[in-house]
């Protein structure tokens, strides 16, 4: 049957099959055209963008830190140097991709090095996970820590120990306030956009002030890496430019001697050259451990310093004001002599107390000094004499001389954040006319009490003016800044802030009296050094009215210069709550002076 039935036309069936094959072929060709369209889009339209992406894939930029500039003392001894230090860093790209295993590794690091786990986690999460740049977690690892990390190296992918230059100081607290500390740029500084994350920035002192000079310019390497992040070849390298070198006016030997002399006391020391205003030593105690502040300090250590009731971060030489106490009597004497209000011949009987209206002012010495003239009043620091003298001279005149000697205004020292102190004026009345001075205010001012406030640096500048015959130097800290490639880029020839014109006789008298303070039975005998003519003035500044304060709550001052004939150094010592200036501050000054003039032995080398 089948063979007879007419088969469906063979040609028809073949044509039908042909059409269907053609249809399938058309679909396939259309799909190929879509693919070509996609290739056109990827390679021609978006090609540039993908080219960039592929460069970003393969090119890594590795910064090379420029060594920070070094600060030298006036004799070329380094005050701070750089030393290779170990830094624990994480490389996000090389950490385990598996979050659980990554966190386990971070936990291991936390327990090995006693770093809070949260700190590590935070460090990892603040950068993109494919970044190859190391994230610094902890600077200044000990060799022991390094050994622990190396031991676990295989289990800790992406955890590396880098060697970075780090600040090194002769001792832990060496010149902490003068130099200032260097730390990673904080969030605020990062916001200003001048610094990169992890970059070290001077935060206080000279490190901050001269940061632009000290920082130098980082170099960098453009490296081609493979997919595993392994460097394949160096594409380009830019050499780092080291920071400039700073030559300061500091004498490291004197600085160290002054720090030793202040050991155990809170207070300040300023050593200045009265011939040019050079600051030879600048000490504020208690100091903070400057080496622990370098790099990334841990939070607890930081809080301990910030919350310390002794305020170790405060630079007491310029940021703290004190009543000058009897040191101020030099100003009163100068004013009285120059204005003719008092003469060396006049004598006063000191019975230990002075009555003004309803008030009684006491001398520091029970029973008084007996009959004294100006010379003895200075040497013995007789208050009664100066109460009377002050009233004769008048508050306005004393204030005028005090301001002429630079009190109540900034010294202009290159450290910033300086306080001005205060020389009181009579209070203004409602109608803005000056009220006349009250006798009590003048009496208090005459012995440097009451509202009078000064900084140790102001006292140093003043004492230098007494020593050099009236020249008020701007305290100089930095002599010059040199760049290795360009020589001296900045220098400070010294600036005179003003002159105090007094009769030569007055200068001579003041020096003579100040010499007597130390050498002729005066209050400053504790600073006497045989063979050296030291001149000085003690001061005991009452913090609060004596009735409430315990004994020993007074600030002790000793302001001195030596040798009397051609003064070379001014030494100012302030001991907070130290007691009497003559008993506490003068011996410290003596140690410093002794070191300056007689111990010419070089000190230990920097950083062992």
């Amino acid at each position, binding site marked *: 049957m089948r063979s007879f039935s007419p088969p469906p036309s063979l040609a028809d*069936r*073949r044509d*039908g*099959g*042909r059409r*269907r*094959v*053609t*249809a*399938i*072929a058309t679909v*396939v*060709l259309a*799909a*190929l055209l*879509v*693919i*070509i369209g*996609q*290739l*056109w889009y*990827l*390679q*021609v339209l*978006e*090609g*540039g*963008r*993908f*080219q960039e*992406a*592929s*460069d970003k*894939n*393969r090119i890594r930029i590795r910064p090379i830190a420029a060594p920070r500039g070094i600060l030298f003392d006036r004799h070329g001894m380094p005050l701070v140097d750089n030393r290779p230090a170990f830094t624990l860093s994480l490389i996000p790209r090389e950490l385990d*991709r598996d979050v659980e295993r990554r966190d386990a590794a971070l936990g291991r690091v936390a327990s090995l090095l006693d770093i809070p786990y949260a700190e590590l986690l935070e460090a990892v999460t603040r950068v993109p*996970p*494919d970044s190859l740049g190391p994230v610094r977690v902890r600077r200044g690892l000990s060799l022991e820590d390094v050994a622990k990390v190396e031991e676990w190296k295989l289990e800790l992918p992406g955890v590396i120990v880098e060697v970075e230059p780090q600040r090194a100081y002769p001792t832990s607290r060496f010149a902490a306030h003068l130099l200032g500390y260097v730390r990673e740029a904080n969030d605020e500084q990062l916001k200003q956009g001048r610094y990169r994350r992890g970059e070290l920035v001077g935060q206080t002192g000279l490190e901050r002030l001269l940061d632009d000079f000290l920082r130098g310019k980082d170099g960098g390497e453009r490296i*081609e*890496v*493979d*997919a*595993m992040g392994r460097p*394949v070849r160096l594409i380009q390298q830019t050499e780092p430019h080291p920071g400039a070198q700073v030559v300061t006016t500091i004498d490291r030997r004197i600085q160290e001697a002054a720090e030793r002399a202040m050991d155990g006391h809170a207070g300040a020391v300023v050593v200045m050259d009265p011939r040019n205003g050079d600051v030879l030593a600048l000490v504020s105690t208690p100091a903070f451990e400057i080496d622990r502040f370098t790099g990334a300090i841990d939070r607890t250590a930081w809080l301990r310093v910030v919350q310390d009731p002794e305020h170790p971060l405060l630079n007491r030489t310029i940021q703290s004001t004190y009543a000058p106490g009897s040191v101020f009597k030099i100003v009163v004497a100068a004013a009285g002599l120059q204005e003719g209000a008092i003469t060396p011949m006049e004598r006063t009987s000191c019975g230990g107390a002075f009555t003004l209206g309803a008030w009684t002012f006491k001398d520091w010495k029970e029973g008084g000094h007996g009959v004294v003239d100006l010379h003895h009043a200075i040497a013995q620091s007789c208050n009664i004499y100066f109460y009377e003298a002050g009233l004769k001279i008048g508050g306005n005149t004393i204030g005028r001389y005090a301001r002429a000697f630079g009190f109540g205004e900034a010294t202009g020292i290159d450290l910033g954040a300086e306080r001005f102190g205060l020389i009181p004026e009579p209070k203004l009345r409602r109608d803005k006319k000056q009220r006349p001075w009250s006798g009590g205010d003048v009496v208090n001012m005459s012995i440097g009490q009451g509202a009078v406030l000064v900084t140790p640096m102001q006292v140093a500048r003043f004492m230098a003016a007494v020593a050099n015959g009236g020249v008020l130097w701007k305290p100089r800290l930095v002599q010059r800044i040199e760049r290795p490639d360009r020589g001296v880029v900045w220098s400070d020839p010294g600036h005179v802030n003003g002159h105090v014109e007094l009769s030569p006789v007055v200068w001579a008298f003041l020096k003579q009296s100040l010499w007597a303070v130390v050498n002729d039975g005066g209050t400053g005998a504790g600073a006497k050094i045989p063979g050296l003519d030291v001149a000085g003035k003690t001061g005991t500044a009452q913090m609060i009215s004596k009735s409430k304060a315990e004994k020993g709550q007074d600030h002790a001052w000793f302001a001195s210069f030596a040798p009397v004939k051609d003064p070379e150094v001014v030494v100012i010592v302030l001991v907070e709550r130290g007691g009497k200036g003559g008993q506490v501050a003068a011996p410290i000054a003596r140690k410093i002076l002794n070191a300056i003039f007689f111990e010419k032995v070089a000190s230990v080398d920097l950083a062992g």
Partner: protein
Amino acid sequence: MRASAVPLIDRRLLQNVDWPLLGASIALVLMSAVTLSTLHVGRAGGTVAFRQLAWFGVGLMALLVTASVDYRKLVRAAPAFYVLGMAGLAAVFMVGKTVSGARRWIGVGSFSVQPSEIFKLCFVLMAVWALTSRWARPIGPGTIGFTLVATAVPAVLIVKQPDLGTALLLMPVLIALLVGAGTQLRLLGGLLIAGVSTLPVAWIAMKDYQRERIMVYLDPFRDPLGSAYNVIQAKIAIGSGQLLGKGIAGATQSQLAFLPERHTDFIFAVFAEMWGFVGCLVLLICYALLLLRGFDIAASAREPVGRLVALGATALLATQILINVGMVTGLLPVVGVPLPLMSYGGSSMLVSLIALGLLLSVRMRQFQ
């Protein structure tokens, strides 16, 4: 007239060899060898290119043998091939080697054979056998049902390896064969609707990593270092090739190993980075030429078996090419499908050349 019992002697057969088809294939294999020779892959190093050429030689022999045998004989033996192929798939579960989480290979001496690759050919022959057998005609729901079962059972086995890519190939090839066999469009439409309605089931049956691949396809920046890494790096490689390519030395994406699977599934991205849009166009034209010759052989075949064998072989190659290039260029989700004649891999090379052998066989016998 029946095919000659003595192969390769009949002069008339040789007169009908499809030289453009062979030419395009050889050009593609050469491009593959050049590309592979620039890659320093794992332990194999530069030998990958030589191994690929060696496999090409083996494949060429297989091609000759296939072409010399009458395809109708092969179709008649299809059920036997199919059972053997299924046995191979089953064997993978018992003696298979696990490579990067998938059991796809069986060790034979120092070689590894991928039964799922070989099975593709068995499947094409089986489908042709089913659609051209007397009992199956005219093609109705029964025939379609039979072919669907014959597809689904091995597909499940292959998915379990897991080798989703190969399993996914079977369906488009079957549809092409059903269309080519003259199935009524109404039935095909019904099949399509049924297929779409099973997609949710497929989603549930998928493995997590497979679902992740689809999510990544929809949103490539979901996980740039994890599951989306391949897709992103492949796009960067292709795109950065721009119009004229970076050349061999400048192809950093592949030379510095940012591109994964670069000698196998992602070889197209390597090629695109080196030779740019122009190079891709040349490559795709070679493939288009190859496929068009295949479709032409199918269209010119005088009887249904020859037409369907040619169509099946061509559809098999076309599906692999489109899925592979589609996934590498980011048009399709990532599934493991090699690029015929380009991707490194012996089984794939062998299967592609046998498919070409089937095409030649049909062409040579179209006037008989």
